[in-house]
């Protein structure tokens, strides 16, 4: 046996703070750039000043017009922030579903969770139920119920075919998505109200973003994110075959239950205030695996930051490409995400790239 020096391998068991901080810094830069671009261009430096001026206790000499301030603070920044939160949420949930199902193609959109959340939300919006309760408060809860219903159906169908093969989960997700979408359409058509708000909401987008929506989304996403981050190390062990993970001391049933619950809650929160946006949960985690490897403790925060960046940029594209008309942001993500999905299928489904 070679007499190897045990010191050669450094202990790397530390939180990847440098990466996370670098990611946050890049994200802030992307956010300011995106906020500055639009039908009215605002110089980047002025945007930064306007935002700094909003911080408590700071008064900068005003060198900008009120119009800029309103556009930035009331429209663009809430929109960028909401896009960031939703992008981070979808990427985090995607990475979590991928880890729990040991399936590199799992994504809130592809396994039917997003459609389920959409159905739940539509029930609130289009039926008398919505008149009985405060919509903004209960919308995410209804979406959560729908999301859980969808993931439960997808998972139990795929599980019963034995060993949860990768393609079965996705096929089950496609069927569940179609079913949920059909039910959503039916409910919409039965209601006699104006359908346009629901329709535009379902297509996905941040046109009606405001600070309240940002705050409400965070309320649902934050507890889920905390849970998922805490389970990062265990998610690594969960990549082993289930009995093996159990022999390593993981309560696999409880872990799966909690993580699916968390990812679905976060997805429901995001879907409630942004509609259905696909593929972010697929692209971001794969890109992060390529760059920083498969450790879920790094993967989860970095995927969230990347997802946030991706969706800010996608939303910027959605509102500028054919300006003054806006594209639904889901169209932009699908244009990049669907070919990426096909690429993953083509070269053989596996984690990483």
């Amino acid at each position, binding site marked *: *046996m*070679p007499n*190897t020096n*045990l010191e050669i*391998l450094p*202990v790397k*068991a*530390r*939180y990847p703070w440098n990466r996370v901080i670098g990611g946050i810094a890049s994200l802030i830069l992307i956010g300011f750039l995106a906020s500055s671009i639009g039908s009215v261009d605002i110089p980047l430096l002025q945007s930064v000043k306007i935002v700094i001026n909003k911080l408590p206790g700071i008064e900068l000499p005003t060198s900008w017009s009120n119009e800029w301030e309103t556009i930035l603070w009331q429209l663009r920044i809430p929109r960028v922030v909401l896009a960031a939160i939703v992008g981070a949420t979808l990427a985090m949930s995607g990475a979590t579903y991928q880890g729990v199902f*040991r399936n590199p193609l799992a994504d809130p959109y592809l396994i039917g969770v997003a459609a389920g959340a959409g159905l739940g939300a539509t029930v609130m919006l289009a039926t008398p139920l919505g008149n009985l309760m405060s919509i903004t408060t209960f919308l995410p809860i209804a979406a959560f119920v729908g999301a859980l219903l969808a993931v439960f159906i997808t998972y139990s169908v795929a599980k019963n075919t034995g060993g949860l093969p990768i393609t079965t989960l996705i096929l089950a997700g496609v069927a569940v998505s179609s079913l949920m979408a059909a039910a959503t359409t039916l409910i919409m058509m039965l209601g006699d109200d104006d359908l346009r708000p629901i329709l535009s909401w379902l297509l996905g987008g941040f046109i009606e973003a405001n600070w309240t929506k940002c705050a409400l989304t965070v309320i649902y996403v934050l507890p889920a994110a905390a849970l998922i981050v*805490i*389970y990062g*190390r*265990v998610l*690594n*062990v969960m*990549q*082993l*075959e289930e*009995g*093996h993970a*159990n*022999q*390593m*001391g*993981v*309560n*696999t049933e409880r872990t799966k239950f909690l993580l699916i619950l968390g990812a679905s809650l976060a997805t429901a929160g995001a879907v409630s205030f942004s509609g259905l946006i696909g593929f972010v949960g697929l692209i971001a985690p794969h890109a992060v*695996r390529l760059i920083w*490897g*498969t*450790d879920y*403790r790094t993967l989860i925060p970095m995927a969230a930051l990347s997802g946030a960046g991706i969706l800010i940029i996608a939303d910027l594209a959605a509102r500028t490409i054919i300006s003054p008309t806006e594209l639904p942001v889901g169209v932009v993500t699908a244009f990049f995400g669907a070919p990426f999905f096909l690429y993953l299928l083509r070269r053989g489904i*596996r*984690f*990483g790239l």
Partner: protein
Amino acid sequence: MLKLQDVRFSYQGTDVLRGIDIEVAGSEVVGIIGPNGAGKTTLLNLISGVIKPSTGDVLINSKASAEYPPSERARLVAVAPQTPPLPEWYKVIDLVLMGRNAHLKLYDWESKNDYEVVLNAMQMTDTLQFADRAITTLSGGERQRVVIAMAVAQETPLILLDEPTANLDIAHQSKVLDIVAAAQRKRQGSVIIAMHDLSLAAQYCDRLIMLAEGVVHADGPPVDVLKPEIISRAYCTEVIVMRHPTAGSPVVVGRRK
């Protein structure tokens, strides 16, 4: 430490185990042998609590194995399954670090001590040299040693190895068995090894338990268990038993008809 009382296990209407009584106490290296389908892997899965007996008790420190919370059980029993699927793209060291899971709290990161244990386990199994490589790049035998390293890193009083030598070359067969057995003796623990190779089992085990048709066919020191008439009855074939020229342990070879 370990006690099985009248353990029966049926799977889809077939009786795999039909009344097993085994006790392992103190520090022992126990080999589980027997023909294909005798229930060796099932027995290991029952001990590790992944499956429950249909009737009877599998007791670890007087408590039913399946009743333990997984993390507590994983501090008592470690398992190296036979060719388990491993997540591609994980580095070898990250896999072996998973062995420390049962000793860590949910939000804990591996400490310096955990790393020392892991590196030590990798040195014992001769896997340290590819610590930084992705698991996909390893051969079958190398993967098998990584799986054993994961179990060793759990630092448990009882280690279960399922066909640990099936893919190993002759050098690594004796090296891995020797070192795992020595490490367990040092911490007053035991190893239970399911094996096909009777001569190898005889060489490394203090005690052999031969399963056949779901019951304990023979149980005792290798010289008492590996007798031609006992083996012939269990395996339904003629064998010749010789003595190992240096170790003195029984060597079993088949007889050509």
